[in-house]
């Protein structure tokens, strides 16, 4: 496990990477919304939606394999949806539609996260008036997931170095102790972090700065992507 395990962003210098995160987030969410609201897919929609994602993939110079690997973390949930659809006795065509919608939505959001550093996404959310506390919560989660990840690795090493039982599954039953220790450490760290925030003048209100810039390139991107999406959604062949 490395310290970058939870970072989806893949750095490159492409037009997709340089766009304002708000425009990417907007385009991504509009894409997901449109896909989810499409019923009885035509050939144009079946080919058009994946083609739009493929175009972004090319624009961002990302390989399909990287995208697939990134999406693998969420795709099992799509399969769960498929399972629930199967139990609901939906027709085969409808089940495929549910699966396709889930896959395309996951791919779209994975593309947004792979071309936008997470801190920029947080800024975009903040400037799109998502509640400040929620954004702050996500920011802490992002910042301290890496720290906690390292602590887990260290705790696991310490645990393994003192594990002598031949049957590892018996040792796993004691993992609760490790988890409890990590919980206490995290709680203590939270207190120290809060003290650090107070020491720098924190008074329950999160200050904000406008660090994003929505330029003409973003306007062009949003217009073209919306137009293409509209053509795919309402077009006829």
């Amino acid at each position, binding site marked *: 496990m490395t*310290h*970058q395990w939870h*970072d989806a962003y893949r750095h490159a210098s492409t037009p997709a990477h340089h766009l304002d995160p708000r425009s990417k987030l907007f385009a991504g969410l509009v894409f997901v919304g449109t896909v989810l609201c499409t019923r009885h897919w035509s050939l144009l929609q079946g080919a058009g939606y994946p083609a739009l994602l493929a175009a972004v993939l090319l624009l961002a110079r990302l390989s399909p394999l990287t995208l697939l690997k990134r999406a693998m973390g969420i795709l099992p949930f799509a399969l769960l949806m498929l399972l629930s659809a199967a139990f609901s006795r939906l027709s085969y065509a409808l089940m495929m539609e549910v699966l396709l919608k889930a896959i395309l939505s996951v791919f779209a959001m994975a593309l947004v996260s792979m071309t936008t*550093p*997470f*801190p920029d996404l*947080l800024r975009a959310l903040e400037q799109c008036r998502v509640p400040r506390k929620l954004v702050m919560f996500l*920011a*802490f989660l*992002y*910042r*301290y997931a*890496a*720290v906690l990840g390292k602590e887990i690795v260290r705790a696991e090493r310490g645990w393994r170095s003192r594990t002598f039982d031949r049957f590892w599954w018996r040792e796993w039953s004691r993992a609760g102790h490790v988890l409890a220790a990590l919980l206490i450490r995290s709680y203590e*760290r939270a207190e*120290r*972090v809060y*003290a*650090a*925030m*107070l*020491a*720098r*003048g*924190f*008074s329950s209100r999160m*200050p*904000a*700065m*406008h*660090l994003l810039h929505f330029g003409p390139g973003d306007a062009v991107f949003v217009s073209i992507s919306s137009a293409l999406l509209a053509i795919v959604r309402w077009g006829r062949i």
Partner: protein
Amino acid sequence: MADILEVRHLSFVYPDGTTALRDITLRIGEGERVAVIGPNGAGKSTLFFHLNGTFRGEGEITVQNEKVSNETLYSIRRAVGLVFQDPNDQLFMPTVFEDVAFGPVNLGCSETEVRDRVERSLRQVGMEGSEALVPHHLSLGQRKKVALACVLALEPKILAFDEPSSGLDPRSRRVLIEFLKTLPQTILIATHDLDLVLDLCQRAVIMDGGRIVYEGNVPDVFGQEMLLKSHGLEKPLSLQGR
């Protein structure tokens, strides 16, 4: 030398009943560099948390002739900058820029002023160009520098460092010492690194069991081997064998 910081009869008990500070009285002159040394659990860090009002014990603390109280917290925190032992506790924002900007933005500085302070303090610690980086992608030494920049951006009059050299390799430690020598502020350092104290500080305060047991000039303190030993300390390596 006028006093910039005065602690009078300060005592503090943690909620679990542990007495951390007992009747601490201390005066720090403007521009002084003072080391607070002592064994683990002596109360050094707890004392530092009182200096900017993060912890509030019994007794009185005066910073620049202003008593620490609810009404003065804003100006006290502006005057006293705390640099934590573990930079992971201090760097809590997603990027270096936002972390360094956190204090100035809270102070109500304008956007131009914030940008200016961030740029200046990062340049001061040699971390210019790291604004967009994520703290967990930095090395420990770099994180310590950014943590220091976070405090320098507040332009405090007093800097209190908790174990500044812990975890640093010899070269980074030397760079840190040379950097601290250039700072014009009043400096307080809680540390076990007695060679750093010898190199940097004029005065040393020994704490043990929540009390100040001795204070004096650094050569005087380090000349008393028995005193050091009785409080879990030993002479700096560079003085041993003399």
